[in-house]
């Protein structure tokens, strides 16, 4: 039986999270530029998240969480996940303290990067998720849905790797390894149902 792995930012969410957090906190320019370069793969993910966390340290965790919880989600995709919840997993490089609340509403199994926090204050990073390592913990055939350069490790081992272009162009490294590319939410859900 196949397990479905989803990236969070730009796949389940209809907007990239960090630029939205940046926008709400008056730090949009810095964060958006970093996010763009990260998706394209011109900055390694671990370096990018370090820099982003440094910028966003000044913002209370509860504020970020509130912004995250208000981001619009891909409703047709959520419907599929609801119907196959026990076979769906979210794999995100984002910080547990920011996105845990949102993710655990959607699925039961999530992999995150881990933050070091002191109450409502973000201090730094405890661990950065390596998606290629995380995916090894999933048994059996997998279907991956993602678009960013840090998803490549998952695409390399997936039976079916779907580059999702509904929010923005998937990274070229993802396109080189994907078995499929889909730009339309309804088409994506129809195909996922066929695979389920």
């Amino acid at each position: 039986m196949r397990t479905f792995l989803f990236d969070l930012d730009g796949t389940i969410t209809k907007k990239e999270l960090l630029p939205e957090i940046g926008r709400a906190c008056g730090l949009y320019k810095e964060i958006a530029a970093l996010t763009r370069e990260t998706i394209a793969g011109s900055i390694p993910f671990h370096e990018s998240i370090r820099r982003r966390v440094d910028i966003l340290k000044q913002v209370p965790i509860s504020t970020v969480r509130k912004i995250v919880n208000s981001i619009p989600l891909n409703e047709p995709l959520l419907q599929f996940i609801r119907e196959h919840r026990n076979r769906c997993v979210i794999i995100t490089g984002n910080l547990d303290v920011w996105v845990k609340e949102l993710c655990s509403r959607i699925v039961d199994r999530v992999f995150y990067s881990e933050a070091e926090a002191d109450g409502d204050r973000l201090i730094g990073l405890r661990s950065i998720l390596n998606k290629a390592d995380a995916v090894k913990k999933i048994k059996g055939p997998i279907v991956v849905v993602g678009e960013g350069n840090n998803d490549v490790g998952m695409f390399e081992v997936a039976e079916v790797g779907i580059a999702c272009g509904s929010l923005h162009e998937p990274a070229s490294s993802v396109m080189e390894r994907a078995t499929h590319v889909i730009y339309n939410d309804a088409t994506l859900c129809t195909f996922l149902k066929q695979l389920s």
Partner: protein
Amino acid sequence: MHFSKTVIINCAGTGSRLGLGVTKALVKIKGRTLIDWQLDLLEDVPDVRIVVGFNADQLIVHVRKRRPDVLFIFNHRYMDTGTGYSLWLAARHCTGGIISLDGDFRLFFALQEPCIGISSASSEEPLYAKMNGDHVTAFSFKEKSNFEWNGIVKTHASSVHEERGFLYPIIEKQLPLRAVNMNTCEIDTPKDFNRAVDWIGEYMDKRAHSRLGAQMKHPSPVNHG
């Protein structure tokens, strides 16, 4: 037997026999690409899947402008595999029936059985279809027949096994198949291409004449302001 309406178009190849340096789907005839001409016929088909390989980026950009709902399948090994492999890549995650176009197939949708498209043998390198009544019983490159296989087939996704080379050996194993005679034009070589330009020109003329005829029969209402 129920057939879902999944249409698969193979556009992964390099079009090497045609020798234009661009995948065949992007070759223009009468100012429009071949994939545009094909998509015209598929406007009512909700599930269109295109296998891409050579020139994938350009083809995806082109198709998305018109049909953002298309599912694209990558054949990353387009250089050392053929149309059979492309169809297998597309079919292995389909359920039910599929129609494969290597290129008016409404009858294909209507028929509730596997079937195969044939056309008058006219291409430069035809794969002849040996007929018995309304069924194709065998393929041959050598043994001539009045008909050739036009690359269109309706079959079960589960009947498509892994095949690195051409598509016809996969289909050959399923013969005999009910034949549907179609007016199509195969393009593999430069000579085929020139023939296709004339063929589409004739089609456009006929369409223009029939529109004119319809307008004369049913004139448009005059707006008297």
